[in-house]
């Protein structure tokens, strides 16, 4: 697992208060990890802070799973 993936997972566990094992790449924040719409807003803010990236609202709306987040962040950092 990449550093980004590890860090994303850690943030999700902390913010949503879920077990680590549940945070699989395919897991949906809302459907699988018990988040509501405000939780996802906060989560995206936590990603921005942790990775020093800007995630605009239209991009944030498309980040619905753990993998979406990892991919987006890696792309930003790579680019």
């Amino acid at each position, binding site marked *: 697992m990449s550093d980004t993936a590890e860090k994303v997972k850690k943030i999700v566990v902390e*913010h949503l208060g879920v077990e680590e094992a549940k945070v699989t790449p395919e897991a949906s924040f809302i459907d699988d990890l018990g988040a509501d719409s405000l939780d996802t*807003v*906060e989560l995206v*803010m936590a990603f921005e*802070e942790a990775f020093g990236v800007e995630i605009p609202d239209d991009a944030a709306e498309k980040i619905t799973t753990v993998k979406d987040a990892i991919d987006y962040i890696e792309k930003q950092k790579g680019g």
Partner: protein
Amino acid sequence: MFQNGFAPRRVVVTGMGIACPLGLGIEHVWKRMLNAESGIGSIQSFDTSALPAKIAGQVPAGTKAEGGLDISEWIPVKDQKKMDRFIQLALVAAEEAVEDAGWRPEDEESRCRTGVMIGSGIGGLETIHEAATLAVQGKIKRISPFFIPSALINLASGQVSIRYGFKGPNHSVVTACATGVHALGDAARLIALGDADVMIAGGAEAAVCELGVAGFCAARALSTGFNDTPTKASRPWDEGRDGFVMGEGAGVMVLEEYEHAKARGAKIYAEVIGYGMSGDAYHITAPAEGHEGAYRAMKAALASAKVTPAEVQYVNAHGTSTPLGDDLELEAVERLWGDAGKGLAMSSTKSAVGHLLGAAGAVEGIFSILAIRDKVAPPTLNLEKPSRESVIDRVALHAQERKIEVALSNSFGFGGTNASIVFRAAP
């Protein structure tokens, strides 16, 4: 409960919960209070070096078993950041009260007949401070999506309703330091009028933060002369008093329609028999001359309770330990009670826990009910030399056994808002 002859439904108290500077749990707190212990200490939660007041009553840390607060025992970590401390304290006191009352209905109808009315004087002040700091630092986009729902006063009622599925009236009171009494009185009236059968009612406050202390300091309201001897600072009616001591906490009661409580075999602590309100129309922070607003609130409360002053054995005073307010309240009580004042015990439990602002009326309502239950008047700590003599026994220093059947509790707030509530021993 009403003055106009309308026949309302009777309202009783079937559960009580408290988080205050003397700890958590009504029995633990009450035992310490009767033991003349103080919950006032030096503020450790932030730097007070630039502030003239450096002391407050804060809810002690510790486990539930010790009567202390470890918030993770009550609220999941994930949810803690969604609520300011005042809401957390409200949830703790509500949990205790609901548990005490044994009221956890599963059916939709009962849930729809159960409402919540928990108020606060100030609300999420520390949360607002944190968000404002981000704005000042140019980090406005870092403001949390939970900022507003964490700071809003009615979210205490909202969070309690969400936790238990109580779908009845969901309301909130904001009347500064009169909030607690207004919440209890208004909630009791909702039951009396038939809007609900059960109300979870009370007040919560957590304004012992930098902005809160600084604001009350600026208003010259706080004690500043006892920073080295914090337990001596709150001294209602004593000649050495120099302002109030801030406190934090929450008090919550389960109020219930009498027949409803009887039908389910609930334990009944007391009945809410009277409630009165008034406004001073005088000054933003100072009480009116002769505390005539307080006089009218108490008079209205006794009239609605259909009792005479002579039938009231205990008054839990607003008594904040301010130079002006304490003696004016005493004067109003003396005037209303007249000769009956000789048989009256009146104490200020703020001497032990400080002034819990919007939670004060709720926790003091609880103390009044426990005074009725145990036939004992809690003490006014530090009342060593009264600034003025009175026929009214102010229960100096030590608790007193008394035949208490009816008790009145006062709360007055900035803006000139006054409220009094009257309880009687369980029917």
